[in-house]
């Protein structure tokens, strides 16, 4: 792996998390059919208020079929690089570090905001905290794909 300087690490990780936050929450709100596309095919752990959910398809199913309309507002978020050379498993095995670029990092994202369930504006704003670990998309498909996918997710109502 080419030595990557701190500027690049910060830029890539903060751009990745910004892009993620700005597309994931709108999807939960109004593009629920796309929710599954945010997840790694075999994610590590997905938690909502202590309930485990198997994978992205199951999350999407819950949001499409069981969740009332929800209005999310992200009020603060931050991220850090976890592993600047994340060992992505591809069809041909684990990607060797020699082939890795700057985008082969995993990123920890923590989000703080509020959510309002239901159509009515009078519903209470519930504070939430959500933690994600994003990892490089292992798909070789160079088409229109997301660069990072959810490996772990933990949503908690906190207020």
């Amino acid at each position, binding site marked *: 792996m080419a030595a990557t300087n*701190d*500027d690049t690490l*910060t*830029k890539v990780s*903060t751009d990745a*998390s910004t892009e993620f*936050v700005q597309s994931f929450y709108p999807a939960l709100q109004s593009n629920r059919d796309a929710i599954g596309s945010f997840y790694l095919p075999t994610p*590590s*752990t997905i*938690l*909502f*208020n*202590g*309930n*485990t959910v198997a994978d992205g398809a199951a999350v999407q199913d*819950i949001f499409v079929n*069981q*969740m*009332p309309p*929800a209005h999310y507002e*992200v*009020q*603060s*978020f*931050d*991220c*850090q*690089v*976890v*592993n*600047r*050379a*994340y*060992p992505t*498993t591809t069809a041909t095995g*684990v990607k*060797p*570090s020699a082939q890795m670029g700057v985008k082969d990092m*995993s990123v*920890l994202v*923590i989000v*703080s905001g*509020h959510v309002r*369930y239901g159509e009515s504006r*009078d519903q*209470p*704003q*519930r*504070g939430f*905290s959500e*933690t994600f*670990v994003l990892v490089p998309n292992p798909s070789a498909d160079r088409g229109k794909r997301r660069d990072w996918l959810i*490996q*772990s997710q*933990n*949503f*908690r*109502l*906190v*207020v």
Partner: protein
Amino acid sequence: MKSMKSRGGRSGGTDRGGIRKRGPTRTDRDGDMDMDGGGARAKRGRGDSGRLAAGGRVQSRDKTMDAIQKAISSSKDSSQVNIRQGKAGGGTWSDSPLVAFLERRMNAMTKSGPRAKITKSRVEGDSLVVFVRSDLADKMLRINGNLFAGIHVSVEPHTSAPSSTLDQDLASAAGTSASTADTKSKMTAILGKRYYPDTKLLDLSKLGTDPDLLAMGIFNTTSTESKFFPALMKVWEMGFTTSAQRREAVQSVSLAHNQLANISVVTTLAQTVPDIKNLDLSNNNFKDAQSLIGWRWKFRNLEFLDLTGNAFSADPSFKDTMLKWYPKLRILNNVEVRTAEEIAAQKKTPIPVQAPYFQDESKIGENFVRAFFAGYDNDRNDLINGVYDDRSTFSLNVNTMAPKAQQAEAAGWDSYIKKSRNLLKISHLPARMSRAYVGAEKIREVWNTLPQTRHPDLTTHPEEMLLECHPIPGLPDPSGQSETGVGGLLVMVHGKVEESVGAKIETRSFDRTFILGPGGGVGGIRVINDILCLRAYGGHEAWSPENQAIPQAVAPPPAPAAVQPGIPDGYGVPAPGKTDTQLQQEQLIAQMSSKSGMTLQFSEMALSGNGWNLDAAWKNFEELKAQGALPTTAFVSGA
């Protein structure tokens, strides 16, 4: 002091808001209004709602007192003018456009010299009292009769004369002068007669006919009348040493029979007793929702509200509006409008709240969290030396807008805001870089600048923190040997944190996520990532599991569960001569004590005070603890 007073043509309607006395004294008060243009006096103005509390703006008690005091002291060197502006429709009126208008008019008359300026203004009843330099007084008076917003404004010198001593005493109820002390002691006596400790009722009904208040001349002028209630509340508050005691003392308030057309005069009640469950506003002159708007977001625990004998009760939207305003309201005008089940259902979320997910077979996460918060509170250097290395990363972000728990007072963010790496706000790369701290030394440096903290004790207050933890793969291997990376733990903590800032204790909530990997630190681990989010205190109700009445301990204490401190042998066990009731009670007490960390004695008090209902006792315990009303002696020491 030159003092002027004015008022405009009134547009008829009901009495204006305010606690007022009835009968002949009404003309005394109206004596102030003699300069009024024809006919308006007989028809009183509509309730000029809003005033200082318009739109539900929170106004601090102390600021009210300060403002009144300032207004009085400043009147020594400037002229005071009273302006009345009638307003049709009874909408909220704000004084600022009127102030600007008056300044414009005065400037139009000023050919040279400094610009005319209104140095201070305040709303008093339906008048606006403004202060100007003495040389401007004549110009001010000439505005009398001018049109503002289609209404003739009348300007007249303001006299706060005969009761000015009382006026000042009310303003400085907290002061020390002899007459102030006298006013205060009279008020204390009045409150004493009107408070019923057994039922926690503060009966402030029919104030206008209270002989003691009449004797004090409270209702003789607009000025004293408008200051009376805030001062009364101030005196009431001074009777308590802690806000918890004050909140605890009153459960019900009656303001019945006070001829209130809006809440402006009594608005401070919401700050003094924010937690009341029962409020009687019957037999006043509230005619619509607008007349109560200042309490739209107050009294969040209100269960009983009586507005019978008010025109508003006949409004078709009355019930819906009140249900919307007060989520816990159950009885409105003596009719049940919501069941307990309906109230419980409101708290349900689409995703049921479960006990924390804690996958941590070798207790690495749990031991880390225990050691971490103890270290962070007591010896940050030692903590850094133990588990942070030259690649550990720490950053913090502040959510200044987060929803907060009811009653939570917002603490400032000065100690953190310049380090906050909220990426919504920090968009420039250099700032994003400088606000992430990589390596033990940089982390040490920033931690040493952050306020001292106290996190909840996980053993005695497990419910105040939520811990979740599970393994994650793909972490960097510090030894560089593993191609596939190493496994570690993702640890997420939410909870309360207290800070001592000077003599003050600030309470906040935090969310903190760690990634732990194998390493050379204490316990064979290292902190790879540590992200802290701080926000206003949000309580811990949100993570109480919905399907269990009693929240589970977040992380079970490592002590063997079978041995419970403070429980004598044979307690809760059948024995000769022990009745079934006694046995059941002992078992409940032991259960309560084990869950709450309270002594047997306090657990018994909690249960017997709640009809031996464990759920109710637990709820009660949580409330008291949240209010800080439980003494340390309530808890088993060292548990």
